[in-house]
């Protein structure tokens, strides 16, 4: 044994986390992506009922609040939302929900990440805003319906007449799209608030934050 014994003192809890993702973070992202994906899938399945086919983003925003808020408090690294959104979008694209989702997922995910970071990962308000922004990506999966819908409807102008096509267009219109955006926004806020409540009531006290 060497005489110059150095007494090493380390406090890794206090040690600076340089903002890089750790293995634990990545695994957590994976897990929460699965949870989110399942919620997405269940909600999208209610799309059998035509009305839900339009409003499922709101349902998802409502239900996913609980896991997502927890997710935001657990990982606290830049890129977490982007990865989760993009991966979900890719998986869903494979299932036939269209590629627009990937684009909205990426963009909105990035914005959400930026918002979170700007709040130092501590601000509750920023968390809620971030979640709301993130939740809107789901509409990307409906964009084909809205875009294509218009073109599709146009094709019937000759055979079905103007009245019909106008009616149809109203349904699949950008106006409707706007309504969906707003509904999702509201649902997301509610979902986030529920998420916060559950966080306080359960997760923090259970020690898994």
């Amino acid at each position, binding site marked *: 044994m060497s005489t110059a014994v150095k007494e090493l003192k380390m406090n890794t809890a206090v040690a600076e986390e340089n903002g890089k993702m750790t293995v634990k973070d*990545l695994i957590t992202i994976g*897990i929460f992506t699965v949870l989110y994906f399942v919620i997405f899938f269940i909600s999208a399945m209610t799309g059998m009922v035509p009305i839900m086919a339009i409003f499922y983003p709101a349902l998802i925003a409502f239900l996913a609040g609980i896991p997502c808020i927890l997710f935001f408090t657990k990982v606290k690294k830049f890129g977490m939302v982007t990865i989760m959104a993009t991966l979900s979008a890719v998986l869903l694209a494979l299932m*036939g929900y269209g590629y627009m989702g990937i684009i909205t997922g990426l963009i909105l995910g990035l914005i959400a990440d930026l918002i979170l970071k700007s709040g130092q990962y501590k601000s509750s308000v920023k968390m809620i805003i971030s979640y709301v922004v993130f939740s809107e990506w789901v509409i990307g999966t409906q964009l084909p319906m809205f875009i294509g819908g218009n073109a599709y409807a146009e094709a019937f102008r000759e055979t079905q007449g103007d009245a*019909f096509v106008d009616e149809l267009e109203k349904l699949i219109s950008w106006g409707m799209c706007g309504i969906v955006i707003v509904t999702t926004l509201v649902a997301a806020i509610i979902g986030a608030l529920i998420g916060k409540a559950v966080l306080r009531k359960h997760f923090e006290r259970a020690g898994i934050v």
Partner: protein
Amino acid sequence: MNRFESGNEDAVINFDPRTKLMLLLIINTVIISDSKSPLISGLKIVFVILVLFFLIDMKKIKMSVIYVSIYLLAVVGDYILVSGSISGISAGGLILRIVVYLVERMLPNMMMAWFVLHTTKVSEFIAAMQKMHFPQTITIPFAIIFRFFPTLADEYSSIQDAMKMRNISLKTNVISGIEYRMVPLIVSVTKIGDELSAAAMTRGLTTEGNRTSYCKIGFSLQDYAAFTVIAISIMFFVIGLIRG
């Protein structure tokens, strides 16, 4: 629920995962296109049959039959609508329209996606991603997603059992129902995730990407044939789009 075993060992078709993804991409793009170009319509039909062929190769005869039948019905429905035999404004017509639209655009995609998922192992995907130099920040979550699906199912059914026993169900109280399901599920899954992270780290898993892959993937004759098909399809697709 083990999704990614190789579905059929006697299968004739054996593509590299990247090829499958490319096929998936091009098939998806073409199928959801709304162009009226006959070239593209023809391409669609070719792809529908191609997907059928893939399914048959997996020996999923029943699935193939159902797939083809539904698709044919949708085509017929489409034709009926276009020829004006049923008024598009009526309720029936509207529903038919939506259904036809969805089936024609989503069914072949879903079948193709199913094909890809069921003939590729997770490790093959990961190997492909590593070859394409995806960072670990993508591959690790990706692998975890597939590893956790069965786990999630197991945990959830345990929780269901527990709720049955304690006489709690969605009927008694919707909010509580959701709370009592999600909370233990999330807690449980998080704990497993933590233990898993620790174990994975002790086996050298890092966020830097210098990993090798045991799984052998590579391009073979079939892949090159597929590439040719893809290239030609892209050509036709673009021409079709331009021609209108």
